[in-house]
């Protein structure tokens, strides 16, 4: 096989893996959007915040150390212990549930029945607050996140492909585990929404708020639940991205890429989020590989958005979204 084709295949595979990560963030968006009609811009920052909190707890950092030191003139940084990864993940989840409660109690409870675009702007405000809080709590420096996931080149794929084509593919173990985790997560979410009481209530709310209210489902509880689930998805995405490129501010920008994913897949469809993620992942990697060198590279910054934009002009509801019907 010609080299170019082999390279392209490798790029495609890597694109699929990156796409899974985009899909992970996009999932969080879809969940919140379906249940509450809120387009949660802060999802990316939530992933960053979750990852920061996880690292902070694992390393035994003192929260708000910087602030405390500035006010009281003390010199504290660490408690001096290390928390095992699993416990730290559970503790972070507790923080994310508390965050979900706070978001619901202090922000969106006061904005019920407002226009969607207003809610969207409120989530932009939330993103700023979370970013600031995350930085003040845990410090703004780049952190390494290691929860014991396998990293580095996958030897088996390398050797197998080398024997088959005479060229070994480079696939990161981390990407493979991300894919597996994402699949488990999606299966778990589907099982949750099909077979549990809360899951069914969630789907009822997503279908029709008022009908759900009239059969006795507490909207308040469901919204806290859905923000918690979104927080959990954000945590998983944060762990994956954090292990890949370090926990830093750019994490929230990478997560912005989930927006074009959503536009491709449709705002209301979970399969759409996954397919959209894969299309964007493969598309931008292939574009960078084929066209990138001709125009100076770094096309990954904008390709996803422009693709989504062009796509929207022809199919405004996305691939799997519900048809937009407007009533006067």
């Amino acid at each position: 096989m010609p080299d170019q084709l082999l390279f392209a295949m490798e790029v495609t595979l890597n694109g699929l893996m990156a796409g899974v990560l985009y899909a992970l963030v996009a999932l969080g968006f879809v969940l919140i959007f379906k249940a509450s009609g809120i387009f949660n811009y802060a999802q990316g920052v939530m992933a960053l915040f979750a990852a920061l909190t996880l690292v902070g707890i694992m390393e035994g950092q003192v929260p708000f150390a910087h602030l405390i030191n500035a006010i009281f003139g003390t010199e504290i940084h660490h408690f001096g212990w290390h928390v095992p990864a699993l416990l730290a993940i559970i503790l972070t989840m507790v923080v994310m549930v508390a965050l979900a409660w706070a978001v619901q109690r202090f922000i969106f409870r006061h904005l019920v029945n407002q226009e969607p675009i207003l809610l969207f702007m409120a989530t932009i405000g939330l993103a700023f607050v979370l970013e600031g809080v995350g930085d003040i709590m845990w410090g703004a420096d780049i952190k390494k996140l290691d929860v014991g996931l396998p990293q580095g080149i996958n030897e088996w794929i390398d050797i197998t492909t080398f024997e088959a084509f005479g060229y070994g593919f480079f696939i990161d173990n981390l990407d493979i585990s991300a894919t597996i985790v994402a699949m488990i997560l999606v299966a778990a979410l589907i099982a949750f929404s099909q077979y549990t009481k809360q899951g069914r209530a969630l789907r009822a709310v997503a279908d029709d708020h008022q009908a759900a209210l009239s059969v006795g489902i507490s909207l308040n509880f469901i919204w806290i639940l859905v923000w918690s689930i979104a927080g959990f998805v954000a945590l998983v995405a944060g762990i994956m991205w954090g292990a890949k490129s370090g926990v830093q501010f750019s994490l929230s920008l990478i997560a912005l890429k989930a927006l074009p994913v959503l536009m491709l897949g449709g705002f209301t469809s979970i399969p759409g989020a996954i397919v959209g993620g894969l299309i964007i992942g493969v598309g931008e990697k292939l574009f960078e590989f084929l066209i990138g060198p001709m125009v100076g590279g770094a096309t990954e910054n904008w390709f996803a958005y422009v693709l989504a934009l062009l796509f929207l002009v022809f199919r405004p509801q996305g691939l799997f979204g519900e048809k937009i019907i407007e009533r006067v």
Partner: protein
Amino acid sequence: MFYREAGDFSTTYSQDSQTFPIKFDRYRYYVVLAIAFGVIPFLINDYWANAVFVPFLIYAIAAIGLNILTGYCGQVSLGTGGFMAVGAYSCYKLMTGFPEISIVIHVILSGGITAAVVTLFGLPSLRIKGFYLAVATLAAQFFLVWLFNKVSWFYNYSASGQISAPERSVFGIIVTGPNTEAWAKYLICLVFVTLCAIIARNLTRGSMGRKWMAIRDMDIAAEIIGVNPMAAKLTAFMVSGFFVGIAGALFFAVYLGAAEVGESFGIDKSFLVLFMIIIGGLGSIFGSFAGAAFMVLLPVFLKNVFVGGLGWPTDLAAHLQFIVSGSLIIMFLIMEPHGLAQLWRLAKEKLRLWPFPH
């Protein structure tokens, strides 16, 4: 009592629809203009010009531009930073390509070029709405920043990838470049702001502005009563682009002097200007000014309090600024979705009756 409107009787339609129908407002407006043109230029120094007045005036133009698009026509845009970059880079290319032509004409032309680019990116608005469109404008933001970074023709093949404003003068007074006096910077921005605000105000109260507002309130209903949605949306994008382009050109040429696109016109600029119009008041020219003043003064204030007053490290103050501006956005959206402009209106209502509210 303080706010007098007695003795104002409109007898013609043109009197009734003027910008300041109340004499008191009109005089106050003249007084503000007189102070801005006649007093401040003599008192201003470098610190006040660079930290407060020049960014305030330039952001006010950008906020007016975005307010026309978002506040009046209801099309949310997250691409303001990228559009300002278009203004800045076209101004740079014009300044270096035609050095003999006045900078004022260059700034206006860059506004025109930006208007064309923004209209192009506004085309999808005919098909998509709401936050779909908001995400689509993100495409403009990232694409434009990438374009100005990668295509070296835009920065005249300079090694650093930066653009820097050459020295230009208006009526013999230097207004760009490192040797500019503080008052000259201030005055040229003030002239542009005043003209832009007058144009914007008159556009928004005329038939064009009413069409925009009809589209904003309900586009289908607007179409039924005979507003052409395509023309209305695209003119909103065009006019908005013109103002944002002028703001971008002034931001680069007068305020920064030298700029690098990713740093000066990144997505944080888009959010900053969006925050200005939310806090200031959507759909209000006065609100654009109030919001710009607020968002320019907030970091200065926080820095003075926390760094100057309490002696905290600067990065802590920067993080606090994130929290404060984010919470302010949420607070305003919850408590006063019409922003500072609405507070101002309420204050006027109160002053009208004071001190006998019944």
